[in-house]
C-alpha cells in the first residue's frame, strides 16, 4: 500500500476537502510541508478548533493508517511503546517444564505487545501518528518522545533497535496547559489554529452536517461566534457548533428561536456557570444578532 503524493498545496487542500475537512491555506501549507520535509507538526489552538480532526483527515486523504497516542499524566514506555506479554511468558515457561527456556526465546518478538509508538515505527503501511495532547504527558515522556522523533527508531533492550522503514507523518497537538520543551519545538513545524471566521464556520457546518438548512447553519454559526466574544469560562469550539447544528437539524428546525436555543444550548455550553450567564443576560441579544447576520 502506498500513500498518495501531492504536488502542490492546492492539491492537498482539495484532497482534504474531499475528506470532509475544510483546511484554510495556512493549515494546508503546513500539512503539505510536514509531508514534504518529513517533519513532525505541532498544532496548537483553543479546545475544539479541529486539531485532532486535522490528523484524522490527513489519514483519510493519504490514505494512511491512523495510529493515535492519547497522552495523559503518568504515561510511560509500557503504555506508549511496548510491553512484554507476561502471562504468555509464564505459560510458555510452564509448558516447557522439562526443557529449559532460554532468555532469547522468552524475550522474542512473539511475546512483545506493541503500543502505538512501536506500532507506528515497525509497520510497513503508511501511517499518520497522532500524539494527542502532548502537554498532558510529563517531562520524562516528552524527553523520550524527542528521542524517537529525531531518529525514528526504538530500542528494545532484549531484541535490538527497530528502525522505521518509512517515516510516519507525525502530528502532535497541545492545549498549552504547559510550555513544551524547546528541543521538541525545534524539531517540529509549528502552527496555531484560530477559531474560524463566520464565513468559514458556516462552510464547515454545511460540510459536516449535510442537509442542514442554509439559514440555520448561518444563524447557528453567528450565534456561536457571538458566544465566543462573551466572557465565558469555556468558549465553544467548532466541534460544539457542529454538534449543535446536528441537533438543530435533527429537530427539523429551519431557524433559531428563543425556545429552541433555550432547550438545546447545553450542546454548545458545557459549563453550568456559562449556561447560567448566557440564559440570564445575553441570549436575546445574541439571537437578534444571529438573525441579522443571516439576513
Amino acid at each position, binding site marked *: 500500500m502506498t500513500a498518495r503524493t501531492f504536488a502542490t498545496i492546492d492539491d492537498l487542500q482539495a484532497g482534504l476537502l474531499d475528506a470532509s475537512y475544510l483546511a484554510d491555506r*495556512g493549515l494546508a501549507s503546513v500539512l503539505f510541508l510536514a509531508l514534504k520535509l518529513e517533519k513532525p507538526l505541532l498544532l496548537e489552538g483553543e479546545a475544539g478548533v479541529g486539531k485532532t480532526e486535522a490528523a484524522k483527515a490527513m489519514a483519510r486523504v493519504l490514505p494512511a493508517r491512523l495510529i493515535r497516542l492519547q497522552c495523559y499524566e503518568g504515561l510511560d514506555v509500557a503504555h506508549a511503546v511496548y510491553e512484554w506479554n507476561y502471562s504468555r*511468558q509464564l505459560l510458555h515457561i510452564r509448558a516447557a517444564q522439562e526443557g529449559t527456556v532460554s532468555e532469547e526465546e522468552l524475550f522474542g518478538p512473539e511475546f512483545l505487545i506493541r503500543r502505538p509508538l512501536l506500532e507506528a515505527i515497525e509497520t510497513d503501511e503508511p501511517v499518520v501518528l497522532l500524539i494527542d495532547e502532548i502537554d498532558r504527558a510529563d517531562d520524562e515522556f516528552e524527553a523520550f518522545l524527542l528521542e524517537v522523533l529525531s531518529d525514528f527508531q526504538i530500542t528494545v533492550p532484549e531484541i535490538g533497535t527497530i528502525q522505521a522503514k518509512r517515516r510516519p507523518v507525525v502530528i502532535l497537538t497541545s492545549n498549552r496547559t504547559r510550555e513544551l520543551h524547546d528541543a521538541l519545538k525545534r524539531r517540529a513545524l509549528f502552527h496555531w489554529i484560530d477559531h474560524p471566521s463566520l464565513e468559514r464556520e458556516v462552510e464547515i457546518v454545511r460540510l459536516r452536517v449535510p442537509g442542514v438548512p442554509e439559514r440555520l447553519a448561518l444563524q447557528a454559526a453567528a450565534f456561536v461566534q457571538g458566544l465566543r466574544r462573551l466572557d465565558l469560562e469555556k468558549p465553544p469550539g467548532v466541534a460544539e457548533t457542529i454538534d449543535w447544528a446536528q441537533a438543530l437539524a435533527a429537530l427539523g428546525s429551519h431557524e433559531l428561536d428563543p425556545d429552541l436555543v433555550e432547550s438545546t444550548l447545553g450542546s454548545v455550553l458545557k459549563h453550568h456557570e456559562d449556561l447560567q450567564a448566557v440564559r440570564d443576560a445575553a441570549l436575546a441579544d445574541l439571537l437578534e444578532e444571529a438573525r441579522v447576520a443571516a439576513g
Partner: protein
Amino acid sequence: MPRVSGVVGHVVTFGRVLRQAGLEIGPNRIADGLSGLDQVDLTRQDDVYWTLRANFVTRREELEIFDRAFQAWFLRTPVSPFELSPPTPQSAVLRRIHAAGRPDSAAGTDESPAARGWSYEEILRTKDFGAMTSDEFDRVRALIADIAAERPRRRSRRLRRHHRGRELDLRRTIRESLGAGGDPVHRQYRLRARVPRKLVVLCDVSGSMEAYVRPLLLFVHAVRGSGKGVEAFAFGTRLTRLTRALETSDPDRALQDAARSVADWCGGTRIGASLKTYNDDWGRRALTRGAVVVIASDGWEREESGARLLEDQMARLARQAYTVVWVNPLKGHPAYEPLAAGMRAALPHVDRFLPGHNLASLERLGEVLMGIERRHAA
C-alpha cells in the same frame, strides 16, 4: 526549481531581524526554512509566509512579532521598530533592588553576624520587613533562601521501583523468575512516586505592598529552586507573568528582571481584574487545577466595584485550586482586622490566611506549604 541565490540572503537577513526581536532563530532553523521554501511556489506570497512561519515560530506569543517582521521585510511596509521590553521603570523599589544587589553594600560595618550573636538574628526574625534597614535586610536574604527548599507533594501516576510497593512489577518479576524455572519466587513491586505539587504564586506589587514585595519575591525565587512546576505572577493594575524573569539562578538579577518586566510596579491595585485575567488566560489552560495557589496581597482593592468581582474570581479560583493560601503582611500587626472590602470578599474562599511581614512568618508559610496534604485542609 532553480535556487535563486537572492532568496538565501533574504531569509538569512530576515532571520537576523527576528533574532533581534527576541525569537530563537539558529542556523538550523534557517536551513529548515530554506528547504521548506524549496517545496512551495516562491511567487506566492502566502506560501512563503506560511512556510517561514511554521519554521520560525514556536509559540503563539511570537506570531505577532513574526507578522510585523514579515510585513516589514518582505512587503516593505514601514512599521514601528521592535520594542519587546517596555522602557525600564526606575521606581524606588527597583533602585533599592539595584543597590541591594551590590555585595559591598554592607562592607562598611565590621560586625559579622557571628560577632553580633544569635540573639541578633532572633530579633531580625521577628522584625517587620517594612522597618528594616537595607543592611538588616541583606542579612535576612540568605535566611529566606533556606526556608523555601521544600514543596507540597502529591502522588504521581508514574510508578517507581520500590521494595514495599503495592503494584507487582511484572517485568522484573518474570525476569527474576527465569532462574527459578518460572516460579516467581522473588516478587518485585512498584509504588506511585510522590512528585512536587504545582505551586502558583500571585504577588501584589502595588505601592502599599512596597516593603514586602522584595522578601516575598525572594521567597518565590527560592521555591523555584525546588524543582519544576512553580509559576509566579505579579499584579498591580494588571497581571504580569514572572516565571521567566525568575528563572535566573542569581536572586538579585532575577528580581531586577522581574521588576523590569512589570510595567506597573508600585502603582495602584485592581486585584479582582488581575485575578480575572489570571483565571481567563492561565486558569483556563488548567494551570490552577490541582495547584496550591498563594496570593500575597494586603487586599486593598482600589476600585469601587472591585470587591464583587474579586469575590467571583476567588470563587472560580478556589473551585479549581487544590488549596488557596492568602498571605497578608498587614495580618502581622496585632490590631489588624480584615476590614478592607477586598479582603473581606476574598476570605470565604481562602483555605489558609497567613501573615508575611517578617522572616518568622515566611518560615511559617514554608511550613504550611510543606504540610499541605489534603485538599482545603492545610
